[in-house]
C-alpha cells in the first residue's frame, strides 16, 4: 500500500452521507455530500466516492484506505430492525436483561417506562449450568439441553443467539462449551459470548452488550460485505477499515465479530477531528462542541486525546436522561449528548419560565423559518430573529429562511405569554439553550475531574459556532475556537484514527500481595491478541504500541480510577509505582486521599494500536484569496447593545492568518456561521482557526 497517498473517510449519518478524500503527501483534499440511501446505504457511498474521484481525476486503485463510520448499529437498535435473537442465560437469570437495575431514573414522574429489551422474554432461556465468582464451576453445562434448544431455535427461524452466563467474566468455559454445542446442533446460528464481547462484572450490563452485538451482527456483516464488493467493483483494492466508538479503527473482520463497538462511530470521528485540529494548532486540551439539528455533544480532549469511557447507554427513552437507555459495555469516546440543537423547541412552562428542548421539530416540519408548516419557535428561529443567521445564506444559500414566520412563532408562543418583546424572547431562547448546554458540559467536564475554565471550547457542526461564544463565556472557557470548514471537520476525523483495539481482563486482587507473574501473563496475553489482530490488518510488529492501564480503588469502593502501568516485565518492584500513580490521581479528582484502607486492582487493560496517521489538511483560502474579507454588514441583536446594531459580516474564506477584528462580528462560511458578541476579540491563528476571546 505504500505509495498510495490517498485516503478516504466516509460517514453515513441519518440525513447525509459525507465523504473526504485526502492526499497524505500534500494535504490536498475534496469533500462530498449526498443524501443517505437507507435501503442500501453503500449506494450513497459509491455515488459520493465516484463524484469525488472524478473531481480529483483519480482511479479507485490509487486509494490506500477507506475509513468508514456508520450509524447502522445505532439505528438498528433504535428501530429494532436487528435479527431475531435469543438469549441463553444461567438457569434462574434469563430476566437479567429486563430486571436491569430495578431503579426509576426519574423520581416524581409516575408515567416513566423502561426501554424495551432487545430480546423478548419468550426468546430468553434458562440453561442448566453454574459458574461462581471465583471461576469455580458448581454445575457443568448441560450440553444436550443446549443442543436440543439450538436445533429448535434454528428450526423456528431464530437467527442469532447471545450466550451470557453468570460470572463468565471469571471463567468462560461454560459459555465456550455452549457455543460448541450450538455449532454442532445448528451451525447456521450466529453466536456471541458475553465473555468475549464484554468480559466484565455485572450481569445486566454484560448481557445487554452481548445481546446488541449479536442482534446487529447479521446486518452489519451483510452491509460491510456488500460495501467491500462495491468498492472492489470500483477498482479499490486497499484496506477498508471501520471507525470504532473508541475512536480506533478496525478491519471488517473485527467489526463483524464485535459490531457493538461500532455504536456511535460517527460522533467519535468528530471528537477525533477536534483533537487532531487542537494538537495541530498547539491546543492539546479542549472541550469539543458539536451542535447539529437535534442534539449537542461535548467531549473532553485531554492532552490531544478524547477521554474514553467503558460504558455507553443507547436508546434513551426519556429526555436523553441517564438510566433511561440500555447499557453497552464498550470502550467509547466519552461524550455527553443533550437534546439541544437548532430544531429544539422553546416554550413557556407551568412556572412561567422559558424552557428550550429537549424535544426537537426535527427536519420535518422543522423550525418555523423553514416554511414547512412548523409553528413552534425553535433555536434556529431565535438565531434568525437575532440576526445571527442570514436568511439568504443558510447552507451557503441553498435554503431560504422565512424570518417573518420565525418572528410570528416567537411572538405568539413566547413573547406575549411572558410580556416581553420578540427580540428579548429570541435572546431568551438563545441564552437558555446555551445555558442548558453549558450546564451539561460543565457537569460532564467536572465529572471527569477537569476544570472547565482551563479548556478552550472547540465548536463545529452547523450550529456550534453560532452558539459557541456564549457557551464559552458561561463555562468560563478561555476562548472559543471555530475551525475553518466546520462542516467537513467530522470526516477528517476518520483519517486521523490509528488502527487499534482495546482489551480488558477482570481480576480483582489487593495491591499488596499481587501474584505478579499472573499479572505479567495477563498483560502479555492481551498484547499478543492485539498484535495478532493488528498484524492481520497489515500493521508490522515494529509499528505497534501497547498501552497498559489498571483500574484501581480503595477496597470496598465501587468506582475505579484508571492508572497507567509501565511497559515491560512487571514484578513486585512495580507495586510502589502503581500505588503512587493511584494516589496522585485520587488526590487530583477528589481533593484528598480516602480513608486509611487497602487498595486493590480490579481490571487489567491493554490498548493496542498501530501508528497514528499524520493528517495535515491544507485548507485553501478558497477560490477568493483576494478582496476584502469584510463582505457586508447586517443588523444583529445583543443584550449589551440593548437592541439591534449594524454588525460587520466577514467572508470566512477570505480571512488570512494574523487577521484580527473586534466583536460584535459575524463570520460566514458555507455550512456554518461564527457569532462573536460585543466585548470579544477575534483573531485568525496560523492554522486558519478563528479564535474568539473575551474581555476578562
Amino acid at each position: 500500500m505504500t505509495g498510495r497517498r490517498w485516503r478516504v473517510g466516509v460517514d453515513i449519518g441519518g440525513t447525509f452521507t459525507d465523504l473526504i478524500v485526502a492526499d497524505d503527501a500534500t494535504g490536498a483534499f475534496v469533500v462530498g455530500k449526498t443524501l443517505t440511501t437507507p435501503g442500501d446505504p453503500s449506494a450513497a457511498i459509491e455515488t459520493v466516492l465516484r463524484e469525488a474521484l472524478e473531481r480529483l481525476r483519480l482511479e479507485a486503485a490509487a486509494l490506500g484506505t477507506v475509513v468508514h463510520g456508520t450509524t447502522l448499529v445505532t439505528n438498528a437498535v433504535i428501530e429494532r430492525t436487528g435479527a431475531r435473537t435469543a438469549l441463553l442465560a444461567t438457569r434462574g437469570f434469563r430476566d437479567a436483561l429486563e430486571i436491569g437495575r430495578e431503579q426509576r431514573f426519574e423520581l416524581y414522574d409516575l408515567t416513566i417506562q423502561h426501554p424495551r429489551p432487545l430480546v423478548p422474554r419468550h426468546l430468553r432461556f434458562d440453561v442448566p449450568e453454574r459458574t461462581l465468582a471465583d471461576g469455580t464451576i458448581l454445575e457443568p453445562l448441560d450440553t444436550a439441553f443446549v443442543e436440543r434448544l439450538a436445533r429448535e431455535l434454528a428450526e423456528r427461524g431464530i437467527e442469532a443467539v447471545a450466550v451470557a452466563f453468570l460470572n463468565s467474566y471469571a471463567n468462560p468455559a461454560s459459555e465456550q462449551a455452549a457455543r460448541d454445542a450450538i455449532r454442532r446442533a445448528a451451525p447456521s446460528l450466529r453466536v456471541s459470548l458475553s465473555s468475549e464481547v464484554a468480559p466484565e462484572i455485572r450481569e445486566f450490563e454484560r448481557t445487554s452488550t452481548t445481546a446488541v452485538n449479536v442482534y446487529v451482527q447479521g446486518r452489519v456483516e451483510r452491509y460491510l460485505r456488500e460495501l467491500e464488493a462495491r468498492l472492489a467493483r470500483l477498482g479499490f483494492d486497499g484496506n477498508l477499515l471501520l471507525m470504532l466508538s473508541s475512536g480506533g479503527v478496525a478491519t471488517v473482520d473485527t467489526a463483524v465479530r464485535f459490531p457493538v463497538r461500532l455504536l456511535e462511530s460517527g460522533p467519535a470521528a468528530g471528537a477525533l477531528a477536534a483533537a487532531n485540529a487542537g494538537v495541530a494548532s498547539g491546543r492539546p486540551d479542549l472541550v469539543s462542541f458539536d451542535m447539529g439539528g437535534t442534539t449537542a455533544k461535548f467531549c473532553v480532549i485531554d492532552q490531544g486525546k478524547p477521554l474514553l469511557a467503558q460504558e455507553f447507554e443507547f436508546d434513551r427513552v426519556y429526555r436523553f436522561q441517564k438510566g433511561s437507555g440500555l447499557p453497552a459495555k464498550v470502550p467509547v469516546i466519552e461524550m455527553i449528548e443533550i437534546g439541544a440543537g437548532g430544531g429544539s423547541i422553546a416554550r413557556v412552562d407551568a412556572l412561567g419560565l422559558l424552557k428550550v428542548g429537549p424535544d426537537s421539530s426535527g427536519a420535518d416540519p422543522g423550525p418555523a423559518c423553514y416554511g414547512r408548516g412548523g409553528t413552534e419557535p425553535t433555536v434556529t428561529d431565535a438565531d434568525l430573529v437575532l440576526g445571527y443567521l442570514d436568511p439568504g445564506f443558510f447552507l451557503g444559500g441553498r435554503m431560504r429562511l422565512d424570518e417573518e414566520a420565525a418572528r410570528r412563532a416567537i411572538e405568539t408562543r413566547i413573547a406575549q405569554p411572558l410580556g416581553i418583546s420578540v427580540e428579548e424572547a429570541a435572546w431568551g431562547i438563545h441564552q437558555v439553550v446555551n445555558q442548558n448546554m453549558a450546564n451539561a458540559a460543565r457537569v460532564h467536564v467536572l465529572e471527569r475531574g477537569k476544570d472547565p475554565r482551563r479548556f478552550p471550547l472547540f465548536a463545529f457542526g452547523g450550529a456550534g459556532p453560532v452558539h459557541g461564544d456564549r457557551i464559552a463565556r458561561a463555562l468560563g472557557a478561555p476562548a472559543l475556537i471555530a475551525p475553518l470548514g466546520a462542516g467537513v471537520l467530522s470526516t477528517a476525523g476518520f483519517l486521523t484514527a490509528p488502527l487499534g483495539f482495546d482489551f480488558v481482563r477482570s481480576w480483582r486482587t489487593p495491591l499488596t500481595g499481587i501474584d505478579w507473574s499472573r499479572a505479567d501473563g495477563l498483560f502479555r496475553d492481551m498484547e499478543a491478541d492485539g498484535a495478532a489482530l493488528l498484524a492481520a490488518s497489515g500493521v508490522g510488529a515494529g509499528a505497534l504500541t501497547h498501552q497498559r492501564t489498571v483500574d484501581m480503588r480503595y477496597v470496598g469502593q465501587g468506582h475505579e480510577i484508571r492508572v497507567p502501568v509501565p511497559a515491560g516485565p512487571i514484578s513486585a518492584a512495580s507495586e510502589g509505582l502503581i500505588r503512587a500513580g493511584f494516589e496522585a490521581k485520587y488526590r487530583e479528582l477528589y481533593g484528598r486521599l480516602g480513608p486509611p484502607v487497602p487498595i486493590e486492582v480490579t481490571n487489567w487493560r491493554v490498548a493496542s494500536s498501530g501508528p497514528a496517521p499524520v493528517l495535515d489538511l491544507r485548507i485553501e483560502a478558497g477560490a477568493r484569496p483576494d478582496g476584502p474579507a469584510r463582505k457586508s454588514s447586517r443588523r444583529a441583536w445583543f443584550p449589551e447593545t440593548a437592541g439591534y446594531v449594524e454588525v460587520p459580516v466577514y467572508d470566512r474564506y477570505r480571512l488570512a492568518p494574523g487577521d484580527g477584528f473586534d466583536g460584535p462580528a459575524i463570520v460566514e462560511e458555507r455550512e456554518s456561521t461564527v457569532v462573536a458578541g460585543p466585548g470579544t476579540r477575534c483573531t485568525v491563528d496560523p492554522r486558519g482557526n478563528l479564535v474568539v476571546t473575551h474581555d476578562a
Partner: protein
Amino acid sequence: MTLDTVALEIMWNRLLSVANEQQVTLMRTAFSTVVRETQDLACGVFDTRGSMIAQSMTGTPGHINAMATGVRHFLNAFPPATLVPGDVLITNDPWLTAGQINDMTVLSPVFRGRTVVAYFASTCHAPDIGGRLLSAEAHEVYEEGLRIPMTRLFAAGEPNEELLRILRANVRTPEETVGDLYAQAAANAVGGRGLLAFMDEFGLETIDPLADEIIGRSERALRDAIRKIPNGRYENEVWSDGFEEPIRIKVAVTIGDEDILIDFAGSSPQSRRGINVVLNYTHAYASFAIKAAVSPEVPHNEGAFRPVRVIAPEGSVLNCREPAAVASRHIIGHFLPGAIFGALAPAMPGRLMAGGAEPVWISMWRGQWPESRSPFTFTLFQCGGAGARATLDGLSATGFPSGVAGVPAEVVESLTPLIQHRRELKTDSGGPGRWRGGLGQRTQMGLRTDRGPAAEWSVSAMIDRIDHPGAGLEGGAPGGPGGFGLADGSPARAKALVVLRPDARVELDPPGGGGYGPAFEREPARVLHDVVEGYVSLEAAARDYGVVIEYLGRPDQLVRLPADYRIDQAATAARRRP
C-alpha cells in the same frame, strides 16, 4: 432582588448541576454497596435559613425530604457563629433526620470569606451502625445501634478521631461505614466548591434572594396545581403486615383551595417493635406523594413542602415517641404514597397509580467465609412490581416510592460467599387490570458449601406485603403477595433474625403491583402478549382476564413463539359476557 426569567432559569439550572456534582462525587467515592450500587442516598443544597433550594437527580424521597427537615435542627444547634471553614457536622438521630439509626446525615457549611452562604447536606444509609443486626426486633432504639448526636465529623478540616474510633469500635463494617462518611464529606466539599464558583461568576454575595425566588415559584406552581383538584376530604386505609400484628395506615387528605392537609389520625398506635416512623419521615413521604401526584414537573425544593401540612397523632406508628424502635421504619413509611394515591384517586381520575410492592425489600445477610472464617455482612436491596397507571402497565421489579437500585448478583457473589440461585420475574404476580400491575420477583439465596464445611449463617429480612398485597385502582385487582421462606418448605419469619443451616436456601419473592381498571377490559391482544412472554399464565388469562388462549405447540417444545398461541374468540366472548 429582581430577576428576569431568563437569568433565573440559568442560575436555577446551575444550582441543580452543583447538586448533581455532589451526588456524582458521593457515588464515586462511596464504599458500601448500599450507597454506590443501591443509591440509598440524598444530596441537596440549602440556603442560610436552612431551606432546600435544589436536590440531585436521583436518590430516595424519604432521605431527601427528611434531610430537608433535619438541616433546620442542625442550624438551631450550630448557628453560623459557632462554625469555621472545614467544619462538617453529623448526626443519625432518627427524630431529627431520616427516622432510622442507620441513616447518616452529614452537613457542611459553605464559607465565602468569613460568612456562611449556604449548606450542603447528604443522607446515606450506613451498611451497619452496630446494635442488633438491622431488623424490626428491637423494643427500643437503644438496641438498634450507636446513636450519634449532632456533632462534628470534621473540625476545621481535621477528622474527629475520637468519634471515628468510637464508631469503628461499634460497627460490623468499620471500613465501609467510615469510608462512606469520608465520601459524604468529600461530596459536600465538591458541591461547595461549585457553588462558590457560581457565585463568583454571577457576582452574588448571597444566594438567599435567589432561593426565595426559586422556592416561591415552586410553591406557587404547586398551589396552582392544587387549585385544579376539587376541594374535599378524601380518605383511604391500607394495611401493612406489621411485626406482631397488622398495622393500619389511615389517611384523610383534605384538599383546600390551594393547600393540602394530610391527617393520619386513626392509624395504628406505635408498635413495640422497630417499624415505627418519626414524623419527619412521615412528612417526607407524604409530601413526596403530593409532589408526584400533583405537579411532578415542578422542581423540588422547600416550596414543594409549604402547601402541604402533615399531621399524625403523637404516639401513633406514624409519629412515634422516643425511645421507640425505628430501624425498619421504611416498611411503614413506603406505604404512605400509595395510601395517599388511593385516597386521591376519585379526585384525580386517570392520573395516579395503583398500589404496588411499596416497601423496598432490604435483607441483611451475616455469616462467615468458608475457609478463613472471617465474618461477612451484606445488605441486599430488592424491588417488587409497581402499580399500574391509567394508560400503562406497572413497572416490573422497579422500586416505588423509593428510588433505590438493586444489586447485581455478580456483585453480591464477588463480595460474599453468598450465591444467588435465582432472580427472575414472577409469572402472575402483576395484579390483573385493564392495565396490569408490574411483576414481582422470584429469588433464591444460598451459601457456598463447595469450599469445605460452612458455618451457620443468618438473614434478617425487612420485608412486607406477604399478607397484604398492593391494592388495585378503579376496579383493578391486587398485586401478587410477596413470599419468604426456605426452599425446603419451612417458613421463615419476616422482620426477624432467621438462623440458617449451611445448606439452606432462602426464597425471597418481592410482591407484584396492583392493576388499574377492570381486568376483563384489557385488550385481548395484550393478554395474549403477556401469555406469550410468560408474564401471565394461560390459566390466569382465562380466570382473571376472561381471555381464553390455546397453546398450539407440542407440550415438550422449548421454543414457544407467538404463532404457537391463539385466542379462542368464542370462548373469550362467552367468558367476558357480563
